[in-house]
């Protein structure tokens, strides 16, 4: 069996946060035992509320943040053992905020050409030609080549970020909320662009979003994250058609509110997102879960896998003995 293109195995990452002067530093478990597989050609959607650890996963997959335990494997080889540049040639990011992901002091042309220069690809003329070709491909007019990011609209900026990510022809794109900083009208343009590029270039995406509509539109498989753990993972149709975890159910129900797409809508779960510094005992979701049982308070739920779907919930554990 060939190993998956990109895989996380039981990865943990915590941060030491100081609660204030003279207070003890405390450990915040941002990612707590996450296993994920990204197969070639698929779009894996990763959804979850703000602060559940999605961006931390993205940073680790990009090699920007080392995991504290567990392993990240690129085609079966540990990311930590690979050369940084070699990883960069295969995995590239698209960040959420195109206002902070482009250096304001550089022209669009220089921003897109930077990866080529770093990797020593081509001479000046060749790089220039490749930059213009890539700009055309992502829908940027050639006259923007000498513009600065401050002169571009949000959608244009995100196109620049996508062009920069794709200029070295990577296989995997880690998109961390690529549209949530954009106007609604521009969001679908960028999503369509990403969709087209994936088809043309045979890319693999990890698509992080807190907008379920975006994920449903794009993803082939979806992982739902809650407080540092993946609580449910299934093929897109399965998850949207028949959610099994109560948290997924709540998320889906909330999408049916009149205003979809405005960030993560009210989950109808009442209680606020728990303080990640003091995660609840047992199942981390139990304080907000409408179906919580006494068991949930004390024992973390076991993971159940079936037909490539995976869920961590006592209810499902009971249903599938």
């Amino acid at each position, binding site marked *: 069996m060939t190993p998956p293109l990109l895989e996380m195995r039981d990865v943990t990452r915590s941060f030491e946060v100081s609660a204030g002067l003279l207070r003890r530093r405390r450990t915040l478990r941002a990612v707590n035992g996450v296993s994920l597989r990204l197969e070639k050609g698929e779009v894996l959607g990763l959804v979850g509320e703000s602060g559940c650890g999605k961006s931390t996963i993205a940073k680790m997959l990009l*090699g*920007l943040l080392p995991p504290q335990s567990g392993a990240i494997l690129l085609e079966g080889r540990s990311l930590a053992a690979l050369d940084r540049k070699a990883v960069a040639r295969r995995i590239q990011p698209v960040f*959420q905020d195109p206002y902070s*992901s482009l*250096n304001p002091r550089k022209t669009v042309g220089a921003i897109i050409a*930077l990866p080529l220069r*770093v990797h020593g690809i081509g001479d000046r003329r060749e790089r220039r030609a490749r930059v213009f070709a890539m700009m055309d491909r992502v829908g940027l*007019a050639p006259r923007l080549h000498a513009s600065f990011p401050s002169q571009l609209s949000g*959608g244009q900026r995100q196109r620049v970020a996508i062009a*920069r990510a794709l200029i070295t022809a990577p296989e995997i794109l880690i998109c961390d909320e690529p549209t949530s900083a954009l106007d609604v009208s521009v969001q679908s343009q960028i999503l369509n662009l990403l969709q087209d590029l994936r088809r043309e270039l045979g890319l693999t995406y990890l698509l992080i979003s807190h907008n379920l509509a975006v994920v449903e539109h794009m993803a082939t498989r979806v992982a739902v994250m809650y407080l540092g753990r993946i609580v449910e993972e299934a093929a897109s149709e399965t998850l949207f058609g028949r959610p099994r975890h109560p948290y997924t159910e709540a998320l889906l129900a909330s999408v049916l509110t009149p205003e979809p797409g405005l960030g993560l809508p009210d989950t109808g779960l009442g209680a606020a997102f728990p303080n990640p510094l003091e995660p609840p005992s047992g199942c981390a979701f139990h304080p907000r879960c409408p179906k919580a049982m006494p068991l949930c308070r004390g024992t973390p739920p076991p993971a159940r896998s079936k037909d490539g779907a995976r869920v961590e919930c006592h209810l499902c554990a009971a249903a599938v003995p």
Partner: protein
Amino acid sequence: MTVETFSGAERILEPSAGALLRRRVFGHAGFMIGAAIILAILAAALLAPWLAPHDPYAQDLTRRLVPPVWDAKGSWLDPLGTDQLGRDYLSRLLFGARISLLIGFSAALISGLIGTGLGLCAGYFGGRVDMVASFVVTTRLAMPVVLVALAVVALAGGSLHIVVAVLGLLLWDRFAVVTRAATHQVRQLDYVAAARATGCSTARIILAEILPNIMNALIVIATIEMANAILLDAALSFLGLGVQPPLPDWGLMVAEGKEYMFFSPWVIAIPGLALFTLVLAINLVGDGLRDLAAPENRN
């Protein structure tokens, strides 16, 4: 592919970024006045050999303490009069501009390199490096600049090189503190993460991605420290511990003239006024740069 190209119609009506910047620079009175004065002093310094009517070191003991031309006893032979050794004051003033500018510029450059380097490392790497850098800055802040300068110059002698070195090695703290804070802020931005994700080396990230974005603040500080160095040099010279006679340093001219100031007040008024004008102009330019670089003024 169904990707529409943006026509950019919304930008056609706006003037270009360069035109906007030019308009703001020329509209800033303080900056323009300061820049004009500095340019004039710079020109005077560079053209001193051609502008000066006499050799600034040539003494003429028969013509000592001649008043300037606007005085009844003055003459066009020495437009700003002569000093106690009969040297032409205008010539000394012109050549003195070279020393002040040289000291201000070199000291700001040296301290800028030290402070910026330290601040970049502290802000980018954080952790231990930051702790060490903060300790070094604190140590430096605990040393009274004037006393240390006095002690070093008293021990090592007061040549131009030593004064520049001492001031350069003492005035970097503001650079370090500001660079550290700015670097720390910029390094959290996604474009630094993007650069790291493309495999950029750390040196390249610091020098090509971060430094250009904190340059505005550094230039403002450079003007402050330049003015600071010029004033400190004048103070050291006045105390007899700066550059040594017969160099036509403005501070030294004030010091040498102080015994004659009651009967010949111009001997201290003229170099004092020159110092005041230069420092004021530098500060005006610094303030102007800060205003022009402020984000709320940016379009």
